[in-house]
């Protein structure tokens, strides 16, 4: 491969990783935008999502990479996988908010954030107990279709990831911009007290943010499985930290920022692995996290005080 086609190849890989990180980063940003809470449980909601997706696909008759589907059957199975996973992780997120975080809503200080770390460990250990520590073969029904472009290869699964990510991000943007509850979400992020005095039931807005963020994490989990063909109880940490970095980089609380930050982190990881060395990717990514926090805490698209006018 020439350097140019290597570069192109890593751009393709980076966009796929970036799409996954963006899906995950949106959950951090939606919740932070409204509650100013960093929800570390999100890491492992994503991880649980990979398992829900795996079990759903297996329940639909897939096993490993041995069952390959085409055409409408492929689309139907994948759509069902995404739908079930997103609903289940969405409900999981709402449950965490309702039963663990809401009782702490009015407690000042870091109690709620620390609690989310605790919830994250609970999810982690539940999966470890029930599934074990080994990695699981993630079922993948996609044919090995490849397209060659200027010496680089695009696989079908990458096209799928892009399509899923774009569709979900467009849907989220439409939801937040144009629906009544989406408008209430934006209003609550900008001025929660004023939003209440318009008649907004803030509990419902918070629930919606958790549902959407966790559902997107579930979609990200299924994307992860289809991309890497495996999952394990430990996958939440690396992906979660990178997605969190993406959210901070884009400006936490900012929806387009999370999308942009995800893509940028994905590209850095892919290009960094190719041209600097895979072992350096995390060094680069977390150096970015530190540098952003020190020099531009509002992120690329954020405002200096992201949530207050």
């Amino acid at each position, binding site marked *: 491969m020439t350097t140019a086609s290597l570069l192109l190849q890593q751009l393709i890989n980076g966009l796929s990783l970036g799409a996954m990180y963006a899906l995950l980063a949106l959950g951090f940003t939606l919740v932070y935008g409204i509650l100013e809470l960093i929800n570390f449980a999100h890491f492992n909601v994503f991880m649980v999502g990979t398992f829900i997706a795996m079990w759903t696909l297996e329940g639909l008759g897939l096993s490993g990479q041995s069952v390959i589907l085409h055409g409408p059957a492929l689309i139907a199975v994948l759509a069902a996988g995404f739908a079930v996973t997103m609903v289940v992780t969405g409900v999981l997120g709402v449950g965490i908010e309702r039963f663990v975080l809401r009782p702490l809503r009015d407690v000042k200080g870091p109690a709620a954030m620390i609690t989310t770390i605790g919830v994250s460990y609970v999810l982690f250990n539940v999966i470890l107990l029930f599934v074990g520590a080994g990695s699981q073969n993630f079922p993948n029904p996609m044919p090995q279709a490849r397209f060659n472009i200027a010496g680089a290869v695009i696989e079908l699964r990458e096209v799928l990831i892009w399509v899923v990510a774009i569709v979900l991000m467009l849907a989220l943007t439409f939801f937040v911009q144009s629906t009544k509850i989406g408008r209430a979400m934006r209003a609550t992020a900008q001025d929660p007290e004023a939003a209440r005095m318009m008649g907004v*039931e803030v509990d419902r807005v918070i629930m919606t943010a958790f549902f959407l963020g966790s559902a997107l994490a579930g979609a990200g989990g299924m994307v992860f499985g289809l991309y890497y063909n495996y999952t394990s109880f430990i996958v939440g940490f690396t992906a979660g930290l990178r997605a969190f970095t993406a959210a901070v980089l884009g400006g936490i609380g900012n929806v387009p920022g999370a999308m942009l930050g995800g893509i940028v982190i994905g590209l850095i990881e892919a290009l960094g692995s190719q041209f600097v060395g895979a072992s350096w990717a995390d060094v680069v990514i977390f150096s970015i996290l530190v540098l952003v926090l020190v020099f531009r805490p509002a992120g690329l698209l954020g405002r200096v005080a992201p949530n207050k006018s």
Partner: protein
Amino acid sequence: MPEANGPLLEFEAVNTFYGDLHVLKDVCYIIGRGEIVSLLGGNACGKSTTMKTIMGIVRPASGAVRFDGVEIQQLSTAERVRRGIAPVLEARRLFPRMTVFENLEMGAYIHKRGPEFEADVERVYARFPRVKERRNQLAGTLSGGEQQMVAIGRALMARPRMICMDEPSMGLSPLYVEQVFEIIQQINADGISIFMVEQNASMALQIAHRAYVLQTGRVVLSGTAKELRDNPAIREAYLGELQVPAPA
């Protein structure tokens, strides 16, 4: 049961705290149907806390808040808005990164979309041509006077029976202040009761029917606007600190 002739809003011996800080002390107010009632007082005496107690942002520790004859102090803020109380908040508090139109949409949050909504928007535009001009601009980029128009328009979108205004004249040029007070009178003439916190006592007493004077959380004076205008203590207060002896 709602009494058609009773007061629209009533505070009965209301006490409100922030933690240990006792802000409202045995406060009683009455706002009659169709009235403009003004609440006067210096800084930090509890005027905004009165607003927050009406809207349900803070709950009183004791006492009753009745709207239309029904106790509302335990109701959620959203429920109070649905019953017909709309706010014009201190310092406007528009949603700065939403457009003017979206701010009006938020004002109508408790209502369904439909022809009535469209008619309400048109009515606000007719009352405030400037708001119509700026409908696609982000609210945070409007001038203070324009923001106040949007804030009042936003309150009207809820089809309220009463509007609570917290210092509607604050930070406005004298020309805008006159305009705002004129608009308040027009709105009132349409049958909406107004409860208005003001530091600009001279202007407030020109349009109010009645007024209360609050001092460190206690009502120290009340009466018709004319009575208060003629009161020497109030005249004094126009210039400096309020010199009203606290009741024993």
